[in-house]
């Protein structure tokens, strides 16, 4: 039973345009959400997070939006750069130390 879902396995965008990665969750008890980025043959690296008491968090080119009523969050990357090409994982935390990941979305940014 996958409680965190990334329904788009892949996304391709042009350099300079906006990338929007989506994530849905089923458990309303999740109270903290994160995005991780992963390059091939490396471990995931933390990108940005958001608490359930907020609906937006911004860090440079990266913005995460949380819609609790829809149980949906999204990651916006503006402008997209070729170096952003990676697999992006959405994750959600319920209680301490129980982090659930989505299956990932592979982003390709074309020059």
């Amino acid at each position, binding site marked *: 039973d996958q409680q965190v879902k990334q329904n788009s396995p892949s996304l391709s965008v042009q350099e300079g345009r906006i990338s929007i990665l989506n994530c849905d969750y089923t458990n309303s008890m999740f109270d903290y959400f994160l995005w991780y980025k992963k390059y091939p043959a490396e471990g*995931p690296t*933390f990108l940005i997070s958001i608490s359930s008491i907020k609906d937006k968090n911004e860090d440079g080119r990266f913005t995460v939006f949380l819609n609790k009523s829809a149980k949906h969050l999204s990651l916006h990357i503006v402008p997209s750069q070729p170096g952003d090409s990676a697999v992006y994982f959405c994750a959600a935390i319920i209680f301490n130390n129980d982090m659930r*990941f989505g299956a990932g979305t592979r982003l390709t940014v074309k020059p």
Partner: protein
Amino acid sequence: DAGITQSPRHKVTETGTPVTLRCHQTENHRYMYWYRQDPGHGLRLIHYSYGVKDTDKGEVSDGYSVSRSKTEDFLLTLESATSSQTSVYFCAISEGPSTDTQYFGPGTRLTVL
């Protein structure tokens, strides 16, 4: 980069054999985690540790055991490996509980034939 190493980086073994994966950190972080990554599932938590000799189960703990005798080392053991345990295993560390940023190691690719 956080100082996390995993050994071995690659391993091929046969069904029924015991396997131990090692995670070593130089950051003195209290929390350590073991995840597995499989296509279509993302990363799933196997076990975690919140201190020396303090461990707890994660989402997919069956068939795995862990030990932490020192702050810097967290071992994952497959007592009798099965083909379903073929996966990429990642270790992670954090200063506090999982709402703190987790730093991941480079991963271990395990193949069970």
